[in-house]
């Protein structure tokens, strides 16, 4: 091995790395919110009594689960001519919305059918029953798989570099091209991703303990 390590390059490019990390967070937060909103809407609609609405929801999930995120992002960026940031947020939100819809559906299915009937019988409207009774119960059940989906989304933000949005992987590749110090920079990028993921896991654990119903 003739490679001489030079870790000072990480420190000298710290602002580029940090702005990349900020870019990752900038995409992640709105895309996560959009994904959760789409996912919960579509997932609850999937337990509807109306067959047409139910089918529409399952077609949505089927379509966007089976198309890679990078194709969706390219479509939104090149054919739809959105700017990179919006394309990344909307594309990732739609893509992960489909996965979160499945998670939501499983969560709703795991709380019994009688929960819905009870809520409806005690005078809730259908939307009220979902808003105040079913979703709060299902959300607690679906938190662990939702956390997995959030981690997947955090990883998928790297795909935004393909449509030239300046996030962490993009910064890593730029610095590598500049300095030819690929190993050190990639290590730094990996460490930042790991830290972001650990922070996310911490936040999700906090949410889980906060929401836990104490009897």
């Amino acid at each position: 091995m003739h490679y001489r390590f030079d870790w000072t390059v990480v420190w000298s490019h710290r602002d580029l790395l940090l702005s990349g990390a900020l870019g990752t967070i900038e995409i992640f937060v709105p895309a996560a919110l959009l994904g959760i909103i789409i996912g919960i809407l579509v997932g609850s609609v999937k337990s509807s009594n109306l067959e047409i609405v139910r089918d529409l929801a399952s077609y949505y999930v089927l379509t966007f689960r089976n198309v890679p995120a990078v194709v969706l992002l390219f479509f939104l960026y090149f054919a739809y001519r959105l700017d990179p940031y919006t394309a990344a947020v909307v594309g990732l939100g739609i893509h992960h919305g489909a996965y979160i819809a499945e998670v939501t559906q499983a969560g709703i299915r795991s709380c019994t059918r009688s929960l819905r009937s009870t809520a409806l019988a005690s005078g809730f409207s259908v939307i009220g029953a979902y808003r105040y009774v079913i979703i709060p119960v299902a959300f607690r059940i679906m938190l662990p798989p939702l956390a997995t989906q959030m981690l997947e989304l955090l990883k998928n933000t790297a795909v935004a570099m393909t449509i030239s949005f300046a996030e962490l992987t993009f910064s890593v590749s730029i610095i590598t091209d500049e300095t030819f110090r690929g190993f050190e920079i990639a290590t730094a990028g990996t460490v930042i991703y790991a830290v972001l993921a650990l922070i996310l896991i911490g936040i999700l654990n906090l949410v889980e303990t906060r929401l836990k119903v104490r009897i």
Partner: protein
Amino acid sequence: MSDKSGATLHLTTDYRHTSEKSAIQLRRFASKGVSLGIFLGLLILFLLWRTPLQNMRWSTIPPYSGFLLRSLGMSWVLTFSSFLLSMVPAIALAFGKLSRHSWLRYPSTVVIDGVRIIPELMIIFWIFFTAPLVIGQSLDKFASGLIALSVINCAYLTESVRAGIQSVPPGLTLAALASGFTTWQVRLWIVLPIAFWNMLPELRNRLISLFKLTSLLYIIGVREFFGALININNREFAPFATMIIAGAVYFACCYAFEATRFFESKWNKVS
């Protein structure tokens, strides 16, 4: 998992008249058709929202059809070969993760979780750009793509294999041990085959994700399907046509693969 009311419905006899039954079936069929129509309409509306019809340039694609088919074949080759490559290490890591010895358990957990926490693109970069710097010898594009896919798939497959192994009832292992098999014989000939059958749906999901993942390899210049479409787009500038084709083909391939679950349930009945 079907709900219990659905299961009891099967047992009760349906006393409705045949013509009524067929009317219900017809209505169900019609509603499926209507919802599919509405969905396709919305999808087309979404696709055409910003793109005027004359700008689609569909006619630029047909001359490249042979090239596209070859690159689609390349995508499949990459998918299956990296899947097979990652199978053996995944099984080894799964047994490592379930091991009694902490010196086996911790390293394999760290390796798997480490790979799972890093973005796929980052791993592709790691292997394509940085591994040659350290090894001192450049890797072929195809080879590094294959290795990257295998590494990523290995980490996820390990979890599936672990779940499959844990789904084998422990009494079975004990019975096999009692009848004189050695530990490794039990693992190889009893636990793994049963785990494999339980794992089949999970394996199919892994294969579908892996196929979708090959689209990211265009970034290091592997000639797979998405990369080919990007090449065509760079030359002809037909982003609408190329991306629609990409979406449609990836959807068709993944859906075709998902449809194999019907055969799976048949096999399970036989076994």
